[in-house]
């Protein structure tokens, strides 16, 4: 799949969605790489897994729901979304996500998958 002139880019999300702008900043990067047709994947670990948790209502705290944009990943050719299974378990999250096609990986596989990418950004 990898076009020789294309870079594979992974964006790691390690922070919860609404206490800082990090998640939104990471999303903007993913979308721009997606729209330039680069090979882009999103990884969620630590508190970053809260960005995938369903049934959140940020309007209650006057925040824009940037997580809604996750459902447009297909449109941006963002097909790879990985979440750390251990991070979910540590937070007792049931693995109900607000988007489809999320792959849960245990730490060893998560790390292995991440190593496939040429460039890694972390937010």
């Amino acid at each position: 799949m990898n076009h020789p002139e294309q870079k594979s880019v992974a964006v790691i999300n390690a922070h919860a969605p609404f206490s800082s702008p990090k998640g939104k900043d990471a999303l903007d990067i993913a979308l721009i790489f997606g729209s330039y047709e680069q090979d882009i994947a999103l990884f969620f670990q630590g508190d970053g897994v809260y960005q995938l948790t369903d049934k959140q209502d940020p309007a209650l705290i006057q925040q824009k729901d940037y997580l809604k944009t996750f459902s447009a990943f297909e449109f941006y050719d963002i097909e790879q979304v990985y979440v750390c299974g251990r991070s979910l378990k540590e937070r007792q999250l049931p693995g109900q996500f607000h988007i489809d096609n999320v792959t849960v990986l245990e730490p060893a596989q998560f790390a292995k998958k991440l190593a496939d990418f040429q460039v890694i950004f972390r937010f």
Partner: protein
Amino acid sequence: MGQKLAVVITTPPYSNLAATALDYVESALQTGIDVIGVFFYQDGVLHADTNISIASDEFQAAEKWQQLHQNFALALHLCVTAAEKRGLRDDISPTNINPVFTVSGLGELVELTHQADRVVQL
């Protein structure tokens, strides 16, 4: 393996990590590595803010970027959205954006990433 390096700065100038970032970029340039550009994102854009004044006995990041820009023609790109959000404006006179920085967009980050053999975020 080529020698083209792109650097992404997401830490602000008042962070101790700014010194690490600058040491890294300077060492790369002195080693002869082709640093094709530095992209400033998130709080990193504050490196370009001429209104920021750091106590004279603390690390002067802005001065250092200026030197690297002048001595090595190092390209310094600001993410415009991140900059505007933090009060940096090039549409006022005088501007509060240090002239050694170029106002760019995230497309520039894609371009740098595309051209570089290695991308490092600090």
